[in-house]
């Protein structure tokens, strides 16, 4: 396994893909198998060999998802100039089925890659939305000294007191009587 701390000195240099002659790579040539049937036949032949099956079982036991394996195999086919990307896309579900068949035959517990790996986990977006909601509520409480109900009740008490004051009859010797 590659150490992540080590510099990748064998990585391709930017623009390296343009250094070879056009048509010098297998994928730049016309594909060897142009129809889906031809590609299926090619893969069935390849995948039925003992060597391939043994390797496949080893990889499946390492918990590599079937979807990843199928994609890698068909990409390899495109790279080798065996078929086009389109044919590879069409053939990929069949490759998955074949890989699962090999796994079932060898009685291996494999990861099909069809289950959502995030199932049962709390979504980050949900956490973020709850956090925002709480923050808004805290801000609203801090910014307001009285709630709207309290303000309404205060106003009504004030007006009642004024009314009482106004309705009281003036008392005293010099007070005018209405």
């Amino acid at each position, binding site marked *: 396994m590659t150490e992540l701390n080590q510099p990748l000195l064998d990585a391709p240099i930017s623009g390296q893909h343009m250094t070879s002659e056009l048509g010098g790579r297998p994928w730049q040539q016309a594909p060897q198998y142009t129809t*889906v049937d031809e590609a299926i036949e090619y893969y069935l032949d390849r995948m039925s060999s003992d060597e391939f099956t043994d390797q496949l079982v080893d990889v499946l036991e390492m918990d590599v998802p079937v979807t990843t394996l199928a994609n890698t195999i068909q990409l390899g086919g495109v790279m080798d100039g065996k078929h086009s990307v389109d044919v590879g896309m*069409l053939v990929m*579900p*069949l490759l*998955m*089925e074949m890989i699962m*068949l090999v796994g079932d035959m060898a009685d291996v517990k494999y990861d099909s*890659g069809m289950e*959502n*790996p995030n199932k049962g986990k709390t979504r980050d977006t949900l956490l973020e939305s709850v956090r925002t909601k709480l923050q808004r509520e805290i801000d609203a409480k801090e910014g307001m000294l009285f709630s709207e109900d309290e303000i309404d009740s205060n106003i009504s008490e004030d007006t009642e007191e004024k009314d009482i004051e106004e309705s009281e009859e003036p008392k005293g010797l010099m007070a005018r009587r209405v």
Partner: protein
Amino acid sequence: MPSFGNNPALTLYRNLEVEKGDDTDVKATRGLLARGQANKVRKEMDVQQPSVRVAKHMSIIKRKRDEITNDRA
């Protein structure tokens, strides 16, 4: 539909499950007196479509898989 990254395999697989339709065991019509499959039937099955052809292949392998898992159970 979830794609789980950049791998299109899952989506393609599920699409082809739909394409496959009813999984019926097609009996081979061989023999001297057997009637050949008419072109009309072939057209109805849409066998010329590459995705349908792959789906048919898939259904055969899937049936085999089911046989293996059922035998084991």
